[in-house]
């Protein structure tokens, strides 16, 4: 690998990180706006930049939409006093927000954003690192995120963060099982006899060029979505945070930029979660289920749409639209469903979701075996 190649890779990595950070910032805005709309309010609509706000219609529209609000929010986090209470364990206290933030950004590196044919007709994938263990890599790093919650809970040395940390460790461990079991049928399907084994996310999406897995294995998708809500600490599963009964849960003692790291880390996890659910169950960059649009385009003389830059743009736009929908779905659910009680969370995880995932795995495995044998 020469220096230029390395430089290009670093630049691409920075671009992806900035895009993800932008998505995180604007998901915060979306959270505030959607919650406001659901509750009959208007949401943030005052922040504006001097020059852009002076543009006659557009400036006012953007201001009313709160487009500049994330700048104000971020600036506030930067300039507030960063309090480290005297009673905390300083090393772990500082380490926790970093751990909350970094794994979320690491996982994004194995997420493919789209696919197109280059001029020579070869398939190109828009991805930072096409590792063969894709989904396993994401699971591994995403589960590192629980250390952030547990560490901050213990290091804060105060009761509410402690309770939050305890809840986090119990909840995240419980739901990871169901989550892992929910994706197994998908891998059984794509790793049929004769095919070389792979956990690659690209392979999963390619296997959905015709029918999405949400249609062929709806129960897996359902279990996966529920477990994803629990893993990203989103309502109705925001046990570790539960600001109404634990003040702020694990981040009670945090302020300023450290709190900002937790906050952005949560939304980065949410973004990666939306990417993963899109890739694994909702067809990734394939626009519609039921037909392979690239084949159809090839037959009707629109093949140039799938090649080069147009192909990449269409694939990425399709993928991005689905991710945005799922981000909206996360927010929408949050402002609809009240939080579960702690014992209910445990009961759903162990007594409902896990048996359901195991049953689903068995049924899917038998079904796939039957298809292999008789069809």
């Amino acid at each position, binding site marked *: 690998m020469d220096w230029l190649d390395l430089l290009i890779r670093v630049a691409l990595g920075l671009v992806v990180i900035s895009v993800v950070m932008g998505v995180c910032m604007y998901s915060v805005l979306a959270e505030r706006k959607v919650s406001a*709309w*659901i509750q*009959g*309010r*208007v949401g943030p609509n005052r922040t504006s930049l001097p020059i852009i706000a002076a543009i006659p219609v557009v400036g006012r529209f953007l201001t009313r939409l709160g487009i500049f609000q994330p700048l104000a929010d971020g600036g506030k986090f930067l300039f507030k006093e960063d309090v480290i209470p005297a009673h905390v364990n300083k090393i772990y206290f500082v380490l926790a927000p970093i751990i909350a933030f970094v794994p979320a950004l690491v996982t994004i590196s194995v997420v493919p954003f789209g696919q197109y044919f280059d001029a020579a007709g070869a398939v190109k994938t828009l991805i930072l690192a096409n590792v063969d263990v894709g989904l396993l890599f994401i699971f591994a790093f995403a589960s590192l995120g629980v250390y952030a919650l547990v560490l901050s809970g213990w290091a804060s040395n105060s009761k509410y963060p402690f309770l939050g940390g305890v809840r986090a460790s119990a909840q995240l461990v419980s739901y990871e099982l169901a989550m892992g079991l929910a994706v197994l049928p998908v891998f059984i399907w794509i790793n049929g006899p004769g095919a070389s084994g792979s956990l690659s996310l690209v392979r999963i999406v390619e296997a959905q060029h015709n029918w999405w897995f949400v249609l062929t294995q709806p129960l897996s998708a*359902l279990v996966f979505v529920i477990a994803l809500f629990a893993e990203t600490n989103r309502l109705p599963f925001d046990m570790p945070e539960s600001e109404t009964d634990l003040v702020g849960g694990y981040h009670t003692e945090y302020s300023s930029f450290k709190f900002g790291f937790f906050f952005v880390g949560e939304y980065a996890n949410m973004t990666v979660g939306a990417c993963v659910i899109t890739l694994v169950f909702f067809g990734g960059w394939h626009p519609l289920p039921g037909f392979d649009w690239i084949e159809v385009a090839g037959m009707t003389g629109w093949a140039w749409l799938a090649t080069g830059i147009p192909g990449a743009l269409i694939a990425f736009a399709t993928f991005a639209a689905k991710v945005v929908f799922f981000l909206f779905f996360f927010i*929408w*659910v949050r402002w*609809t469903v009240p939080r579960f009680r702690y014992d209910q969370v445990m009961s759903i995880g162990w007594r409902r979701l896990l048996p359901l995932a195991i049953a689903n795995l068995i049924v899917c495995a038998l079904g796939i075996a039957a298809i292999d044998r008789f069809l």
Partner: protein
Amino acid sequence: MAVGIKVLERKPLTWSERMYLPEIAAGLRRTWRLMWKPKVTIEYPEQRPPIPAGYRGAPTLVMDPNGREKCVSCQLCEFVCPPKAIRITPGEIPADSPHAHVEKAPQEFEIDMLRCIYCGLCQEVCPEEAIWLQTTYSITHTSRADFVHNKKKLYEMGGTLPDEHFKWDKKLAAEKHGNAH
């Protein structure tokens, strides 16, 4: 059983309700519809809420249409004021004034808006209809001293009461006809 009390029967949850997911879907449908409803927010500095009739805002002093201050500093409001927000320094009206027959007017009239509870007793008790509660509800100053509204400020806020009553002019006319009271 008392009239008007209706005891609702608590039905056990149906199967679909216990499954929870259909109920979540129903909730999502409802919040989706709420999202498109008109907003109830009043965007305050630009939009103001409608003031209901009989609203009790800041107490002020008023003048009559001839520009005479109606207050005769009888100090009834000062006595009745529950939080003791009003302080009146009575004064004489100079003999060369056209309203000299009224005899008294406040030399200084202070209402401490940090104490005022907007109860309206001052307006109710005033025999001269000189003190009126206005609809002003946003009283903002930058120092505690500014919150003590003095006479000038109170007349500024109160203005003129367009009430053609002229009680003291009638009294003066009656007195000149030798028919006082």
